[in-house]
C-alpha cells in the first residue's frame, strides 16, 4: 500500500502511514479523447491529513477533485476511498463534503436552510437538524446569520457558510476547490487560519486546491505540486522549498535563480558544473544522472552571500545591475555568468555597504544550497 512513484520526482517519504484513506491508482483522465488532462496519477492520503494540490492554471487540479467527488468519471485507473473502489459510486453516496470555488450556496434558501439541506436529505429529524445547524453556525462564528439569504452575506461570511455546509453532515473527507480565491488578501489570511483550525479540531481529511503557493505552504501537511497533469512532487512544505526534486518545483515554489551549465563530474552527490561562461561551480546532485548532461542550477536568493567574508564552497564574480531598497532587505539584481536576472537578497542589518550599480563584486554560496536539476531553457 505504499505510495507509488509519481511524476519525475514523486516522493513517498511522508506517506509512510500504512493506512491510506484516499488512494488514486494510475488514474488518467481525458475529456475529449485527444489530450490527457491527468496523466497517470498516483496519490495516497492518510486519514486526517491536510493535502493541498498546487499548480498553475489548467494543470488538472480541479479535474482530480471532480473525479474524487464523482462528478467526472476517470478515463482509466481506480480511485479508492477507505480501501473500496468508488468509480461506480454516484456522488451523493460518497459522503464527501465539498466547498466550491464560488461557494455554490443555494440562493433561494436561507443560511439555516442551506446548512440543514444535507441533514434533511439524510432524513434527520427537525429538532436534530436545528441543533446541528446551530452548533455549526457557532463554530464558524456566524450565529446571527441563520435567517439571511446568501446574497446578504459578505464574501468572507459566505465562505464560512460554505465551509460549514460541507462540514455539517460530518463527512470524513472534505474537498475544497480554491475556496479563498475570491477574497482579498487580509481576509484570505484570516480564513486560512480558520480553515486550518477547523481541520485540526475536527480531524477531517482535507484535500485542498489552490494556485496560491503561500496558502499551500502555510496550511498543508503535504503539498502535491501539479503540472501538466502530473504530480511533480508530493512532500511537506518545508522539503518542497528546501529540496525541490526538479526544476519546475524549484521555479514554482518561492523565488529562485537559474544558472545553466554542463555536468563535468559527479562524486558523492556533489556535481561539478561548468557554467556558460566557463566558470566551474559545485552543486548538490538532485536531478541529473550522467556526466556530460546539461543541468540547471537552482539557488535561493536569500542563500547567497554578497561579498563573502568567510571561506565558502563557491565564490564567483558578478556585476551589480540594479539595487532595489525594500526596507527589511535590499534586492540586488546582478549579471552572473551571463544571466542578468540573478537576484541576491541582502538582509538590512543597518551596516553601511558600499554597493553601487555597475560595480563588480564577489558572491558565494554553500554546495548544499545549490541544486543541480534537470535542464530548462
Amino acid at each position: 500500500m505504499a505510495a507509488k512513484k509519481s511524476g519525475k520526482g514523486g516522493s513517498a517519504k511522508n506517506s509512510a502511514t500504512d493506512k491510506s484513506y484516499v488512494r488514486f491508482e494510475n488514474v488518467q483522465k481525458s475529456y475529449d479523447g485527444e489530450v490527457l488532462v491527468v496523466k497517470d496519477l498516483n496519490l495516497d492520503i492518510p486519514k486526517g491529513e491536510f493535502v493541498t494540490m498546487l499548480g498553475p492554471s489548467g494543470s488538472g487540479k480541479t479535474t482530480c477533485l471532480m473525479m474524487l467527488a464523482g462528478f467526472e468519471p476517470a478515463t482509466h485507473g481506480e480511485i479508492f476511498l477507505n480501501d473500496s473502489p468508488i468509480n461506480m459510486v454516484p456522488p451523493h453516496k460518497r459522503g464527501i463534503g465539498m466547498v466550491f470555488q464560488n461557494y455554490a450556496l443555494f440562493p433561494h434558501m436561507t443560511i439555516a436552510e442551506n446548512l440543514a439541506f444535507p441533514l434533511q436529505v439524510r432524513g434527520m429529524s427537525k429538532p436534530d437538524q436545528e441543533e446541528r445547524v446551530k452548533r455549526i453556525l457557532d463554530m464558524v462564528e456566524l450565529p446571527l446569520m441563520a435567517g439571511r439569504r446568501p446574497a446578504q452575506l459578505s464574501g468572507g461570511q459566505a465562505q464560512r457558510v460554505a465551509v460549514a455546509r460541507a462540514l455539517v453532515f460530518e463527512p470524513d473527507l472534505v474537498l475544497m476547490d480554491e475556496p479563498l480565491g475570491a477574497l482579498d488578501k487580509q481576509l484570505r489570511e484570516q480564513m486560512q487560519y480558520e480553515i486550518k483550525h477547523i481541520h485540526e479540531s475536527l480531524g477531517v481529511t482535507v484535500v485542498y486546491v489552490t494556485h496560491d503557493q503561500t496558502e499551500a505552504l502555510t496550511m498543508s501537511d503535504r503539498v502535491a505540486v501539479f503540472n501538466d497533469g502530473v504530480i511533480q512532487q508530493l512532500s511537506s512544505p518545508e522539503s518542497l522549498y528546501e529540496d525541490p526534486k526538479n526544476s519546475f518545483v524549484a521555479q514554482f515554489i518561492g523565488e529562485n535563480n537559474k544558472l545553466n551549465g554542463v555536468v563535468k563530474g559527479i562524486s558523492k552527490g556533489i556535481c561539478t558544473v561548468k557554467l556558460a561562461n566557463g566558470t566551474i561551480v559545485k552543486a548538490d546532485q538532485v536531478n541529473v544522472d550522467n556526466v556530460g548532461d546539461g543541468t540547471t542550477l537552482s539557488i535561493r536568493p536569500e542563500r547567497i552571500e554578497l561579498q563573502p567574508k568567510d571561506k565558502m564552497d563557491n565564490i564567483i564574480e558578478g556585476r551589480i545591475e540594479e539595487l532595489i531598497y525594500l526596507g527589511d532587505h535590499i534586492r540586488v539584481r546582478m549579471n552572473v555568468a551571463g544571466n542578468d536576472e540573478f537576484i541576491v537578497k541582502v538582509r538590512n542589518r543597518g551596516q553601511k555597504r558600499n554597493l553601487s550599480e555597475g560595480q563588480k563584486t564577489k558572491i558565494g554560496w554553500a554546495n548544499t544550497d545549490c541544486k543541480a536539476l534537470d535542464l530548462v531553457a
Partner: protein
Amino acid sequence: MTDIAASETGTTSEVLTTRDGVPLKRSLARALRREKMRALMLIAPLLLFILLAFVAPIADMLFRSVENNIVQNTLPNTVVALRDWNPNSGEIPGEPVFEALAGDLKIAVSQKTHTRLGSRLNYEQPGIASMFRKSGRKVKNLEEPPYREQFIEIHEGWGTVENWATIKQFSSKYTDGYFLSAIDRERTEQGIAEKPEKEQIYLFLFGRTFFLSVTITISCILLGYPIAFLLANLPLRSSNLLMIMVLLPFWTSLLVRTSAWKVLLQQQGVINDFLVWTGLVTDAGRLVMINNQTGTIIAMTHILLPFMILPLYSVMKTISPTYVRAAKSLGANDWTAFWKVYFPNTIPGIGAGSILCFILSIGFYITPELVGGTSGIFISNRIAYHISSSLNWGLGAALGVILLAIVMLFYWMYDKIVGIDNVKLG
C-alpha cells in the same frame, strides 16, 4: 467672493448654495434640464407615434363602452320631457312627451339619424328598430296634436311601457348597459338581474377563455421546460441548432402554421390516417381533433411554446451547474437535487413565461377562429364579431375593457405573489 459665499452659507445655514448664491438644488436642476430636454427630443417621435397609434385609439375604443349620447342627440326634447315620467307607474308617458317626440323625430328623419338610434336601442330592446323605422317613414303624415294616439296607431310599440323605459334608461350620456350585457346582466324594473338563460353567453365565454388559456400555459410549461433545459445545458453547437429549431416558427406566418395544424389534425388528416394505418383507431372511429377545444389547445400550445421556452432558457442559462453539483455532494440524489435546488431557481423563468403565454393566449383570435370551431372559440372572437359584424362597438369595447382588467388583475396578483422583479426575460 469667498466671503460672500461664506456669509451666505452662514445665514441660510441648511440650504447649500453655489458660489454666486443660487441654491444648489436649483442650479443642479437647471444643469440637468438640458440633458432631459435632449433625451425627450430623442424619444419624441416614438412617443408621438405611440400616443397617436396606440394610446389614443385604445382610449377612444374603451370610452365607447360607456358612451351613450345617441338618444340625447337624436331626441333631445323627448329626453327632457321624459324626466318627469316614472316607468314604475305602469303607464306610458303623457301627451307632452309625444309632442316632443314628434318634433324630434321630424328633425331626426331629415338628418336620417333615427334608424341608427333604432338599431342602437335594438341591442337593449329587440324589436325597437322596426318601430323607429316605421315611425320615421310615417312621421310626416302626422296630423294636428294630440299625437299620442296617432303614434300608437303608427306602431303599437309606442304604447308599451318597456319601450319607453328603454328610451328613458338610455337617455343619459353614459351607460352601464354595455357592461351589464357583457356580464350577461340587464336592467329590469326590479333592478339588475341575470339575462334569460338562453341569452347568457359572455360569462361562459370568459370562463372558457380563462380555462383554455390556463390549459395552454400549463402545456407550454410541461413541453417547454425540458427543451429549455436542453438548450441551456447542451454543448454550444447542438444547442445552437436546437435554438434555431425553436425560433423557426417565428419565421413562418401564424396563418400558415395554423392552417398546417388543420391539415394534420382533421379527420381525413395526416395524424388520423396514420392512426388508422397502424390500427390504433378504426376508420369509423377517426378522432375529432379539430374545430373543437382540442384543436385550439394543440395549435395554440405550439404557437406560444417559444414564448415559454425563451424566458425559461434565459433563466436556466444563468443557473450555475455547481448548484446541482453542490446538492449532490451534500447527499441529494438526482431528483432531490433537481426538485429542491434546480427547480426553485427556474421559477422566475416559469413565471415570466407563464405571464407571457397566458396574456397572449387570453387575447388570441386568429387561431381559435380557424381551428376552434364553436366549442373552441375565445372571448376575443366574440369581440371581433361585435366590432366587425354586428357593429355593436359599445359591447365589443365593454368586453375589451373587462378583458384588459382581467389581465391587469392577474398581473397585479402575480406581482403580489411572485414579485415582478423576479421575472426575467433575458
